[in-house]
C-alpha cells in the first residue's frame, strides 16, 4: 500500500519536475488525495481489491499527464468487510491524512458507514462496489455518489428480461441475510409485474454453506423454469458449479443476480455457459471500453477489469474534472460542493460513456443483460459475454420519484 503511494508520489514528482522545466512560472496546485477503501483479503478481492487501486492509479497518471500542474495522490486500505474497521480508517483519512474523497467501498455495510462519515466531515464519498440501492435512497446525502450498479438495476435488468424471454416461473436460492432477502424481494417484484410467478424459495444459511446440492434438488423438483441465485461471491460460484453437476442447468435457466466477470473467470466457461447476468460495464462492449481495458490490463498482469474496477476509474476521472472546474483548493475545502459540481457537469468516460449524476446521488448509465458464451464461442481468456439486451440509462435505475431520498424535492 505504502509502496504504490510512494511510487505514485514519485511519478507525480517526476511530472512536476518535467513541467517545471518547461513552464517555470506555473503555480503549484494543492494535491487531491484519493482514498481507495477496498477488500484486499476477502471475498471481493478479485472484483475490486488490487484492481481497484490499479484503475485509480491509471486515471491519476492520465489526468496529471493531461493537466500539467494538477497533483493527485492515492492511499489505500483494506476494509476487511467490517463496517467498524472501515469507519475507523475513514475517520483517520479525513481527520489526519488529508484525504478528500473515498472510493470503492465494495460492501454495502461499509459503504453506508463511510457515507455517513463523509457527510459529517463534509468530504466526498463515491461508492462503486456496493450493491444496496439505499445509498441513493433512504440513506442518501449530499456528499455521496453511487456509481456502477445497485440492487434495483440488477433486479430490473435480469428479472424483467428473463420473464420476457419466457422464464415466467422462478425458484430462488437466497443467502439468508439482509442482502439476499433484499435481492430476492426486488427481483420477485419485477417478475410478478412482468406477469411471472414465484414458485418457491429456499433460504440457505450464510455463511457456512458449501454444498448446495440439497437445495438444488429441491429447486429442480419445483419444475420452475428459472433458478434465481440471490447470493454473491463463493456462494454463487458453488451454486453454479453444482447446478451444472446435478444437471439442474439443463432443465432450468440459471440467473445469477449478482455475478462479476471475475466469478465467471474463476468458474470457467465449461461450467458457466448459458448463465444470464447483468452488468453495467463489460471490457469488450465497445471501442472505448476496449481502449480502457488495454490501458488497464498491463498494470494487472493481463487481467481484464470488472465493472467495479472500471467504476473507480470513471468516478475518479469525473471527480477530478469537477475539482478542476471549481478549483482544487475549493474542492478540497468543501466535499458537498465538489459532489454538487459532479452533478452539474455531464459525465463522460471510456467505461460507461456519457451519463449524469442525479440529485439523489445516483449515477445513471445503460445496463446490459449478458449470456455467458459456450467454450466453442469464446476466442480466449476473458472473451466471456454476449449481449442479449440493454436498458437505456433513464430506465435502468429506480426512478427519482420512487426513491425516498430526502434530497429530492417533490
Amino acid at each position: 500500500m505504502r509502496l504504490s503511494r510512494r511510487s505514485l508520489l514519485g511519478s507525480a514528482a517526476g511530472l512536476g519536475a518535467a513541467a517545471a522545466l518547461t513552464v517555470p512560472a506555473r503555480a503549484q496546485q494543492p494535491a487531491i488525495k484519493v482514498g481507495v477503501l477496498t477488500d484486499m483479503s476477502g471475498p471481493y478481492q478479485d472484483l475490486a481489491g488490487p484492481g481497484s487501486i490499479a484503475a485509480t492509479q491509471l486515471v491519476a497518471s492520465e489526468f496529471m499527464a493531461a493537466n500539467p500542474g494538477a497533483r493527485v495522490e492515492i492511499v489505500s486500505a483494506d476494509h476487511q468487510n467490517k463496517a467498524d474497521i472501515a469507519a475507523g480508517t475513514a475517520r483517520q483519512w479525513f481527520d489526519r491524512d488529508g484525504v478528500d474523497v473515498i472510493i470503492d467501498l465494495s460492501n454495502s455495510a461499509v459503504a453506508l458507514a463511510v457515507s455517513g462519515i463523509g457527510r459529517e466531515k463534509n468530504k466526498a464519498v463515491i461508492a462503486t462496489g456496493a450493491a444496496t440501492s439505499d445509498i441513493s435512497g433512504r440513506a442518501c446525502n449530499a456528499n455521496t455518489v453511487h456509481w456502477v450498479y445497485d440492487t434495483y438495476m440488477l433486479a430490473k435488468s435480469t428479472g424483467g428480461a428473463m420473464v420476457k424471454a419466457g422464464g415466467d416461473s422462478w425458484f430462488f436460492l437466497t443467502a439468508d441475510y439482509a442482502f439476499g432477502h433484499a435481492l430476492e424481494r426486488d427481483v420477485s417484484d419485477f417478475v410478478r409485474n412482468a406477469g411471472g410467478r414465484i414458485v418457491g424459495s429456499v433460504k440457505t444459511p450464510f455463511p457456512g454453506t458449501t454444498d448446495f446440492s440439497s437445495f438444488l434438488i429441491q429447486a429442480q423438483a419445483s419444475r420452475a423454469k428459472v433458478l434465481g441465485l440471490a447470493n454473491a461471491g463463493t456462494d454463487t460460484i458453488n451454486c453454479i458449479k453444482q447446478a451444472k453437476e446435478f444437471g439442474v442447468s439443463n432443465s432450468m435457466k440459471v440467473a445469477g443476480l449478482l455475478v462479476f466477470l471475475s466469478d465467471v473467470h474463476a468458474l470457467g466457461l465449461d461450467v458457466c455457459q448459458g448463465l444470464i447476468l447483468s452488468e453495467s460495464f463489460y471490457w469488450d462492449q465497445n471501442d472505448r471500453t476496449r481502449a480502457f481495458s488495454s490501458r488497464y490490463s498491463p498494470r494487472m498482469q493481463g487481467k481484464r477489469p470488472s465493472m467495479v474496477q472500471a467504476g473507480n476509474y470513471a468516478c475518479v476521472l469525473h471527480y477530478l474534472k469537477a475539482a478542476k472546474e471549481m478549483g482544487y483548493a475549493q474542492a478540497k475545502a468543501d466535499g458537498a460542493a465538489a459532489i454538487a459540481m459532479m452533478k452539474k457537469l455531464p459525465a463522460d468516460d471510456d467505461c460507461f460513456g456519457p451519463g449524469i449524476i442525479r440529485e439523489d446521488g445516483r449515477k445513471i448509465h445503460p445496463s446490459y443483460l449478458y449470456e455467458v458464451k459456450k467454450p466453442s464461442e469464446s476466442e480466449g481468456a476473458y472473451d466471456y459475454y454476449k449481449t442479449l439486451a440493454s436498458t437505456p440509462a433513464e430506465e435502468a435505475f429506480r426512478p427519482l420519484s420512487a426513491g425516498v431520498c430526502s434530497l429530492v424535492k417533490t
Partner: protein
Amino acid sequence: MMMILGIPAPLLFGQLLLGVVNGAFYALMSLGLAIIFGMLNIVNFAHGALFMLGAFTAWGLLNYAGIGYWWALLLAPLIVGAFGVLLERLFISKLYKLDHLYGLLLTFGLALILEGLVRNYYGSSGLPYRIPSQLQGAQNLGFMIMPNYRGWVVLAAIVMCVITWLVIEKTSIGAKLRAATENAPLVQSFGINVPLMITLTYGAGVALAAFAGVLAAPIYSVNPNMGANFIIVVFAVVVIGGMGSILGSIVTGFGLGIVEGLTRVFYPEGSATVIFVVMVIVLLARPAGLFGRAH
C-alpha cells in the same frame, strides 16, 4: 406420489443420498483429526487449511506440471503430508509437554498464515478444476440425478476409512502406535522410535486432509477459505463421535451428513446449526462423545 411426513418420497430419498455424500467428506476430514488428537493430543486447527492446500496442490499439479486428477489423488496427499511432517518437526513437536490450548493456538495461527499466503497469490474467488473425464456425467436413479463423481467420492471415502481403521486396529504398527499413546516411555524402552512414529502419524493425518481436498476440488470452489468453512463442522463431528475415536468419527461423519441433509428439506435455515444442536445434546448426555471413553 408416495409422501413421507408431507415430503414427496423421491425428494426425501434424494436428500438422504446427498447426506451420505456430504457425510463422506465429514468422515474423511474428522478421521484425520481424530488420529492426530488420539495419538498426539494436539487439537489440529490447521486441518482445514491443509485440506485447502490439498485442493490447491491438485490444481497446481495440473496447471504447472500437467499432472491430472488421478496422479494428484496420490501425489497431493504425499506432498502435503511431507509438508505436515515439516510443520510437526519445526513447530508442533515443541508443544507436547504443554497444555492443549497451546497446540490449538499454534495450529490456528498456522491456518491463518497458510490461508493468507494462498489468498495473496491466488485471490479469493477461487480457481476452476474439472471433474476427470472418466467420472463426468450422471446416473438417473429415477428419484434424482446422481452425478458419477459424487458416487466416486462416497466409494473413495469408504475405502480410505476402512484402510485407516484396519491399519490402526489390526496391524502391528497400529498396535505400537496405540501403545505409545498409552505410555510412550515404556514403548520407547522396547527400542521403538516413538518421536518418529508420532511425526509420521501427524503426516498421515495431514495426508488424509489433503486427500479429501483433492476429492473436493472438482465440486467445490478451490479457494483459500474452503477449509475454514468445513473445519468448524468437522470439529463438531469429532466431538460428537468422541475425541480421538476412529470408529466414532467415521460413523458420526456419515450420520451427521444424513441429519444435515434431512434438515435441508424440513427447515433449510437451520441446516447450518443442526450439527451443533446435536453436539450440545450429545455432550449433555454423554460428555465423552458417542464412542469416546471417559478418562
